């Protein structure tokens, strides 16, 4: 499996940068090309980050509206997809924050994470037994920040710096947030039938 962000289907890097510069000068065809290029990936990202499909559909629309309006703020020396994902992340994060489902907003609870050495064979067994679908269901039951952190890292393939920026935590904390999220995910997966827990995640 390749990560979602580094796999632009269809257009080459040169075509993309060409389309961006044309879109910036108001060419709506070029904008259409960009939209077609990235809409699917951004939708998938939102689908993972937000609780429901409808949320993800709305968010995708809104993100592209924002991106179009702010296209002149984009710095062409940086990768476009990184910028796009940044807008998407902030947007999803705002939605989650508005709904007050960032119950783990405080960093304090992250600090008392016990850095224990888990039993590798037990972890390996758990990982082997679970299907991607079970993992997705378990993910949906996690608190917003844990889910967001995993999505940013393993779906959008963001760097620790970018994640720190998006989640508003210090860079040194990103690893802790990710590890804690993994622990929560393991816990959710460990309880037979992750579906039973799904309701507990977002009040």
């Amino acid at each position, binding site marked *: *499996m390749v990560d*979602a962000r580094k796999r632009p289907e*269809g257009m080459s890097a040169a075509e993309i940068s060409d389309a961006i510069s044309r879109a910036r000068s108001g060419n709506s065809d070029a904008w259409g090309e960009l939209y077609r290029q990235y809409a699917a990936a951004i939708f998938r990202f939102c689908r993972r980050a937000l609780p429901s499909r409808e949320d993800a559909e709305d968010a995708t629309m809104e993100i592209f509206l924002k991106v179009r309006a702010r296209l002149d703020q984009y710095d062409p020396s940086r990768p476009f997809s990184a910028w796009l994902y940044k807008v998407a992340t902030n947007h999803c994060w705002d939605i989650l924050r508005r709904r007050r489902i960032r119950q783990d907003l405080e960093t304090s609870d992250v600090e008392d994470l016990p850095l*224990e050495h888990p039993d590798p064979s037990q*972890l390996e067994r758990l990982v082997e037994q679970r299907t991607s679908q079970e993992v997705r269901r378990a*993910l949906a039951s996690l608190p917003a920040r844990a889910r967001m952190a995993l999505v940013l890292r393993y779906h959008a393939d963001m760097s620790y710096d970018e994640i720190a920026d998006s989640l508003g935590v210090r860079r040194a904390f990103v*690893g802790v947030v990710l590890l804690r999220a993994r622990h929560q995910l393991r816990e959710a997966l460990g309880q037979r039938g992750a579906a039973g827990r799904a309701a507990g995640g977002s009040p």
Partner: protein
Amino acid sequence: MTHFDEMTCLLYLEGQLERPRALELSAHAESCAECRALLRALERESRLLTQALVEEEVLGTFLAALALPPSAGAAETKHVHVYTLPVGQTVHNDLIVAAGTARIDGTVDGDLIVFCQSLTINGHITGDVISFSQMVRINGQVDGNVRAFANMLTLTGPVAKNVTAFAGSVEFDSKSRAGGGMILFAGDASLDGRMNRDLLGFIGKSVLNGFIGGNARVASDRLTIGPSAEIAGKATYQGARQPEVSPQAKLASPLEVKIVSHRPDYTKPRFYIGLALRWGVAFLFGVLIASLVPGFFADVVRSSRRYGMSFAVGSIAAVSALILACVSVLLLVIGLAGGLVVLMLFAPALYASQVFVGTWLGEQLLGPSAGTGEVIARLALGLLVIRVLGVIPFLGWFVWLAVLLWGLGALTLAIYRGARQQAMAPAQAPAL
């Protein structure tokens, strides 16, 4: 020996450790089976996460269900939010896609059937393209026919055979080619490409600026023939306004023009005779129903008194019948028989709707009826009111739409109730 903690192992795998610390860990892991096992387990967990997050989910819409005609069981079917067939990939089969967005950059060695919002074909289809999509754009090559039901259809590539389209707007640019002819039902159409055979168009507003190898027959509200247009066969136009023909256009024979007005001419007696005739036919139809199946007739009129319910049920019935017709067409892939059967059952029901609504309307004006004679009087008056309201420009359309949905709903309700009553209490006589 002290083991490395999980945090450090994770940071190591993620490439986040500083170099000396990373070297320390890898040196340790070489001799420590437990740390190696932990690294491996974490790595697997990462992979599972990535896989779970990147994998596409199946789209469970009812469209997806529609896309699975049993006759096409052998075809490859895809229901996803976004479907892409990448460049260089070939599907050696018929391909059926139900998706939000579909993009075909590769090759389909067979027919392509698509239900989606937006379809783009840049690749190569060796069979037919059948599409029920909002936006269709064909830039690639199609070796068969194109049949499109679309809001917007854009063609810039070559189609080896014919193009049939029911579309809001059709745009065939100067690079588009059709080896055969075209049949178009469209709100507006701009045809700049080449077609080798005939054009038959029922088009609101049409602009011809390309090459037509055969005859061109266009029924249109307005027609413009541009300077680069070339028509090898006979060209006929029927429409409301005079067509504009560029003097540079190359026409094999002068354009035959027939101006017809769609608007009824209220000053001519013909209009009123027509109105009376149509009223008479509907009236006779109503009398026929009322005398052949009086019980059923009364049931339906009773149902139509619950107009809100009738209207809602009618809308649902109309939409389902339409979908049913579409599905039957699809099942036989343009074998129209099934679709026509549905429509043939549907058309009398639609026609009858005015009878029931008319009777209801008559009762509103003359009071409740008792006996067949009074019913017929109310029917006659009600039908007359509907007919008169129906000829009001623009508003008349809404009157007819309301009458159709309402009557259809009442009919459906009455049939449903009748069936239920029969099933539940066969001995009970229907209440008046």
